[in-house]
């Protein structure tokens, strides 16, 4: 198990390096190289940039400086905002995105297992068909449409009951988090529902379920100890990509619901061509996602003995 974790960590580290390198060279590919363009920034920022990124030095040295800074956890300074470091921005806005993301994953996980189990239980009867239809619709329609529809529904509900059931947008309380995180997790929820259903149905005919039945176990024991447990395992494997999808999905949801998260900030940074901020947040996001995937991998090792031992 130790070797397994060590291997995964090393692989994760390599991936982060790859992401950082790709980011660095992508940014230096920008035509006219605004990082070295004297006109693009104010003199004060210019001075900071030069000191921080070694812009007067040759490319390979800039690359080394960049890597060293990243390794130290220093993601750079803003290109357009005076005296603002990327770390400050991340510190201020990332917790919001992370909270939203984790709640979304929670909704997706719980909902996926629950609805998947329901669909499998009612296999080929109307609740199953209904759930499958919903899943297919959810996967096919972009998330921002649901966000818009959800907001419309909230407006009307709030009007109808004449009370504020849930806030329509904004940030600050738990109520503010509910609607956006549900929307954010919706796609993953649908995907997990489908996966859970098929995985439960596949296991339904597994020989070891027949063995369990032949042992005289009760239906509930067979379901919870044998079927459900094994059916949930494949769900853990897709948790990594799901976290990535949810994190980047935050770009849309945060701007629709006016949530001051890092996603919204990243999109704004791109609109303002804040190159250094883009570079820093990309590497940060990339490392965060790699870390999440790593954690999921290790978690999977813990829940599935077959992975742990090999």
């Amino acid at each position, binding site marked *: 198990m130790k070797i397994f974790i060590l291997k995964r960590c090393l692989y994760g580290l390599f991936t982060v390096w790859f992401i950082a390198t790709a980011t660095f060279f992508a940014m230096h590919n920008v035509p006219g190289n605004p990082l070295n363009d004297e006109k693009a920034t104010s003199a004060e920022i210019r001075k900071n940039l030069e000191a921080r990124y070694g812009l007067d030095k040759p490319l390979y040295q800039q690359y080394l400086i960049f890597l060293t800074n990243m390794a130290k956890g220093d993601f750079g300074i803003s290109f357009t905002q005076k005296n603002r470091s990327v770390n400050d921005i991340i510190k201020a806005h990332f917790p919001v995105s992370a909270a939203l993301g984790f709640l979304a994953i929670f909704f997706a996980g719980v909902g996926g297992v629950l609805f998947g189990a329901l669909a499998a239980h009612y296999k080929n009867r109307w609740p199953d068909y209904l759930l499958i239809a919903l899943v297919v619709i959810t996967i096919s329609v972009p998330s921002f449409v649901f966000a818009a529809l959800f907001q419309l529904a909230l407006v009307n509900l709030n009007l109808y009951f004449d009370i504020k059931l849930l806030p329509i947008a904004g940030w600050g309380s738990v109520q503010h988090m509910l609607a956006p995180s549900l929307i954010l997790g919706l796609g993953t929820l649908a995907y997990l529902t489908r996966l859970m259903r098929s995985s439960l149905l596949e296991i339904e*005919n597994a020989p*070891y379920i027949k*063995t*369990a039945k*032949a*042992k005289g*176990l*009760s239906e509930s024991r067979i379901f919870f*100890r044998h079927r459900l447990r094994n059916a949930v*395992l494949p769900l853990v494997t897709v948790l990594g990509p799901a976290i990535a999808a949810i994190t980047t999905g935050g770009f849309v949801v945060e701007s629709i619901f006016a949530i001051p998260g890092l996603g919204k900030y990243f999109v704004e940074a791109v609109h303002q061509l804040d190159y250094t901020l883009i570079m820093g947040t990309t590497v940060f996001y990339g490392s965060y996602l790699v870390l999440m995937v790593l954690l999921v991998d290790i978690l999977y090792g813990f829940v599935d003995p077959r992975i742990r031992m090999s």
Partner: protein
Amino acid sequence: MALLRIEDLNVLFKSENSDKSVHAVKGLSLELKAGECLAIVGESGCGKSTVLSSVLRLLAVNAKQSGNIFFKNENITTLSEKELQKIRGKEIAMIFQDPMSSLNPTMKIGEQIAEALKDVKNFSAVDKHSKVIEFLKMTGLSDPEIRAKQYPFELSGGMLQRVAIAMALAGEPCLIMADEPTTALDVSIQKQVLNILKHLQQQHQLALLLVTHDLGIVAEMADSVLVMYAGELVEQASVEKILKEPKHPYTLALLASLPAFSKDASKTELSSIEGQPPDLSLPIPACAFVDRCEYAMNVCASRKAPIIENKQSLLRCWLPHKEQV
């Protein structure tokens, strides 16, 4: 008195996406006395495993079974699912073909055996553990303490089948049904597992219902043999009679395909049965074997032969074979 009696068992599998249905078992009857070993023999797909599964009502949802099954003189086809759970494992236990897939991959072996223990609710954790070890020891598995804490994928096929046997014993049943218990194992391991099974059967006075296509196993284990073809009984007799005086052309052909039983041991070429068993979803001629039978007569295609009982042997054929092997 028979421990298990099956009367006129029929099993029909409905296909999910067409109205075709497969008549897998047709009007099968059999009896098994306590402590006796009955082997059901036939090619794969002839319905022999289905018979075992239908005893404990373990067939897939698309299967429809009819007929009566008496266990200790009680008709267990009329029992509710709850009542049947008391019989499964505790009175009648089962061993499956592939030990690798028939054990839960994510559950420790000890836990899986403990689940099967008789009166498991009355045991403390320590008692449970010692019971599990006891049953594992019975099967001659080395280091049972370690094995109990391992997962199925850490053990070899032969070890796993011993685990499966221990699991079957754990419920202290009086009948074990074994569905091709050695097919998935290496030839060298097959023998060991069979010996354990035989030893335990004799030691615990267990009745054994053994499904196999391997006549070698039959010769070693069984007291009597039931030969099935296309879901039907074609011949049943004591093991000596079947091996020495097979009456049905199909039994004869099965024997001829085995090296040890081949008529002429000097012949290097083994005979095989030409053709394939019939598709059970299509209408079948009066005798299902007619297409592959060397001795087929006109009547075989037009009329079904009745089952004839003669000195505790059963036979369904218009032309019983006389020759001795």
